[in-house]
């Protein structure tokens, strides 16, 4: 492991420890169909109540620790997205939400990048169309290191186990 890697891992651990119990979220819509937004909004409803986990939404990027990006990264939003990210103080986390943001729906052309990580670096990917509020909660908890990533261990090949 190089010195840079060690330092970056250490910084990441410290940032995650800092965010573990209190994290402010700024959402950014880079051209989504608004269904991801509707699921994100549900997070503050009584059923999911993300405040109990120490997550809060903030309208100001300067007060935010985490940027939640949905949509296919339309090129018209590039400047806004970069400026929003630049306005968030370091250390910061970027979470890409939904199939569009992960590069699943739109191919890159002159209007869209088709994936968020073509514009800004992404730390955590949350798949789904739309990801349910529980999937979003899992994504947020993974982002702050409170839950383990699970998808690597999941097997979508059942062989004959469920035959009945």
């Amino acid at each position, binding site marked *: 492991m190089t010195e840079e890697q060690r330092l970056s891992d250490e910084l990441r651990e410290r940032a995650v420890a800092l965010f573990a119990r209190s994290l402010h979220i700024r959402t950014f819509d880079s051209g989504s169909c608004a269904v991801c937004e509707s699921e994100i909004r549900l997070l503050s409803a009584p059923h*999911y109540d993300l405040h109990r986990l120490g997550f809060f939404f903030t309208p100001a990027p300067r007060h935010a620790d985490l940027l939640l990006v949905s949509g296919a990264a339309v090129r018209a939003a590039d400047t806004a997205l970069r400026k929003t990210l630049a306005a968030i103080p370091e250390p910061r986390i970027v979470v890409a939400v939904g199939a569009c943001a992960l*590069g699943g729906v739109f191919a890159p052309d002159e209007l869209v990048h088709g994936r968020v990580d073509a514009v800004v670096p992404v730390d955590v990917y949350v798949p*789904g169309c739309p990801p349910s509020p529980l999937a979003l909660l899992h*994504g947020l908890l*993974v982002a702050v290191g409170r839950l383990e*990533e699970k998808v*690597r261990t999941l097997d*979508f090949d*059942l062989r004959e186990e469920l035959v009945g």
Partner: protein
Amino acid sequence: MLWFLRGIRRGVVTTRYPRATDAWARQLPSPPAFRSRRLTPELAARLAESCTPGALRLEGSELVLDLGACTGCGDCLTAGDDAVVPSGEFELATSARDALIKRIPIGAEG
């Protein structure tokens, strides 16, 4: 006052996630899981063809599922007879995009 009484009667509605997962969460639209022994090359081709968001594709003797592209639409469940079932999985967040690409062998033994 009436709202207060209504609230008392309803009890706690907040999910206990992440300490416990609600049973209904497994019934939400989710990516497919495959009984790979029942997959034939023809069926796999039909599945790749049926996938509206283009999350399934054939690569040699493997069916490649991109969970990042899957919208949980269920078209493959219709096309796949009993070889495809809903996985019921929603905890798919990851820091590596590559981890979302799953390879399913076609008609494998094992």
